[in-house]
């Protein structure tokens, strides 16, 4: 049982991005986790329909873009449609207050924001009596934006809207 295999197994079962810290916690004490991740990223890039992607502190195993649509129906739905819609509203109007989002989406939006924050797709900061919401780097990664600039993301969504 070597560290490289352990990291690969962990990324497989997690189904979500893992931090380097999480990966270190399962590898042996003297493992160079960053090196091992790099070598896995390279191996997966080489062949097969899966990829391992590292962004800042996070590492995730997922289906390569060109295969995504073909197997999307097989995948368990990740975000429920109502949550996804709330996310859409946040992404398009950001930075946007939680109360504004609730006004557009109804009171269920509070639960959705909670879930989106837990998934690290949205982050918030206090803003008067409500909170100001914006999308995260993880959001940009997840939806395949090359940038995490809020302005550019809003613009691209605007284009899609036409």
């Amino acid at each position: 049982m070597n560290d490289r295999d352990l990291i690969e197994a962990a990324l497989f079962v997690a189904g979500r991005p893992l931090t380097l810290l999480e990966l270190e916690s399962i590898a042996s004490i003297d493992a160079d986790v960053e090196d091992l991740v790099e070598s896995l990223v390279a191996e997966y890039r080489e062949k097969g329909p899966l990829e391992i992607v590292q962004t800042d502190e996070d590492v995730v195993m997922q289906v390569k873009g060109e295969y995504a649509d073909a197997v999307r129906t097989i995948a368990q739905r990740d975000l429920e449609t109502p949550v996804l819609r709330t996310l859409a509203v946040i992404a398009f109007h950001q930075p946007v207050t939680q109360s504004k989002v609730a006004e557009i989406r109804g009171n269920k939006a509070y639960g959705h924001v909670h879930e989106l924050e837990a998934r690290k797709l949205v982050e918030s900061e206090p803003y008067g009596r409500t909170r100001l919401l914006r999308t995260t780097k993880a959001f940009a990664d997840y939806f395949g934006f090359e940038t995490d600039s809020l302005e550019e993301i809003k613009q691209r969504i605007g284009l899609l809207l036409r």
Partner: protein
Amino acid sequence: MTSGESPDTAANGAAPEDFDERSIDILVSLAKNGEIDPWDIDIVDVTDKFLARVAELEKLDLRVSSRTLLFASILLRMKSDILEESEPEDVDEEEPVEDDLQACFPALSPKVRRHAKRRVSLSELIQELKKATKRKERSDVRRFVQLQAQEFDALAVAHSEDIERQVKRVKRELKRRFAVRDQVLFSELIVDNTVEAIVQTYIPLLFMATRRQIQLEQKELFGDLSIKCKNL
């Protein structure tokens, strides 16, 4: 009216309704009339009904005891805790604004990841049971200590010398019993089943519990109190 210790109380004008009898009466009558279900208490509902009944009694110019007010304040506290905990109500079930934006967003096609979840193991179930039990015990103890502190305040107005005499008497009784076993039931200490005798035994027990001389435990609502020796 009992002889012996009771004249003290009578002299203080401590009628039974000055203590928990009236509060319990209110709750019992609410239960009897089917206004509350003792096995499935909706604390918000009970609090409202309890307070309404207290207001009624006041209107009839019956004395409302400090205990009754204490009960009311505890109920109110529980009610506010519950209201604070509950989710904001969904006023609009329907999603209000449906626009192109919301409809088109899935077109952004998120990355496809694996979302398998694993089953929980039996040992994890047991771990959670342990945590649930511990938490319950902690909150029970906390509530009991708080209650004792409040009792103490509420009863501070009582004539302390009389109370101390009663404490001594009950302590004597308890010591005698604890000499041969480590648990005594409240009912055993009640020689004659009058409200006065019950109150004159119950109040000293609360004092002793507050002083950590004994430990009180009531397994079920309106059930017998079990008394354990801590530091008599």
